């Protein structure tokens, strides 16, 4: 089966691109990035703040069942063009990764399909590779459990 999500991370470079084609109109894809309740569901994190405008800022936070903060991130929006483009920064709190710059381009393919092109620029190639090497298996398991929760709620 062809992989829907593609990562292009050239060796020794400080950036990468993530590309994905969705069976969704571009307006719905874009909405998934701008409505806090929806972002919370697919990102599996609480949205404390999400200002969809130039010079707006955002803040996400994830707590474990005991109320301990396990993930916190924030950033600023630099460009916001509905259904087309979001340029923003991303920084994880209490992590040695420094801020990263994200260019999100939303592209209409047909009336029912769209493509997201995410270009992420890190401060150094080493920081990029460190991000890639995070123990993501853990994250995937967490995401999987949350997916189950979301699906159960929908039933």
């Amino acid at each position, binding site marked *: 089966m062809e992989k829907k999500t593609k990562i292009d991370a050239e060796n020794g470079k400080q950036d990468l691109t993530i590309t*994905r084609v969705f069976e969704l109109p571009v307006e719905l894809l874009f909405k998934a990035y701008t409505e806090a309740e929806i972002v919370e569901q697919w990102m599996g994190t609480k949205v404390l703040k999400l200002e969809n405008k130039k010079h707006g800022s955002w803040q996400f936070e994830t707590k474990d069942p005991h109320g301990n903060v396990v993930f916190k991130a924030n950033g600023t929006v630099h460009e916001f063009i509905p259904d087309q483009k979001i340029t923003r920064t991303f920084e994880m709190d209490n992590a040695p990764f420094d801020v990263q710059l994200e260019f999100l381009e939303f592209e209409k393919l047909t009336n029912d399909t769209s493509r997201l092109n995410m270009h992420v620029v890190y401060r150094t190639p080493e920081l990029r590779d460190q991000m890639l090497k995070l123990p993501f298996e853990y994250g*995937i398991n967490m995401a999987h459990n949350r997916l189950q929760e979301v699906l159960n709620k929908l039933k």
Partner: protein
Amino acid sequence: MNLRRDVFQAIADPTRRAILLLVATQAMTAGVIASNFDTARPTVSKHLQILTECELLKQEQNGREIYYHINAERMKDVADFIEPFRAMWEERFNKLEDIMKNYKGN
């Protein structure tokens, strides 16, 4: 798991990446490898040792010389090191797609 991490550390270093690229073109001795870098020879030896320990390079005796080869099998593992990262985004995007398809129906 530790071994995997070691491989990541190995390729995080720019000189070691350059060595891998160089040796990928053809097998060569430590001396020839070192002559391609401004770095002091003991430093290059240290890099070779690390690359050999995590099995990205293989040593082969040829007469009196030891040649370094790329371990293709191991390099393939490294090429896959992006996979968990990719899988994480795939999972998120699948979820996004499911949620929004449902949204459309509302």
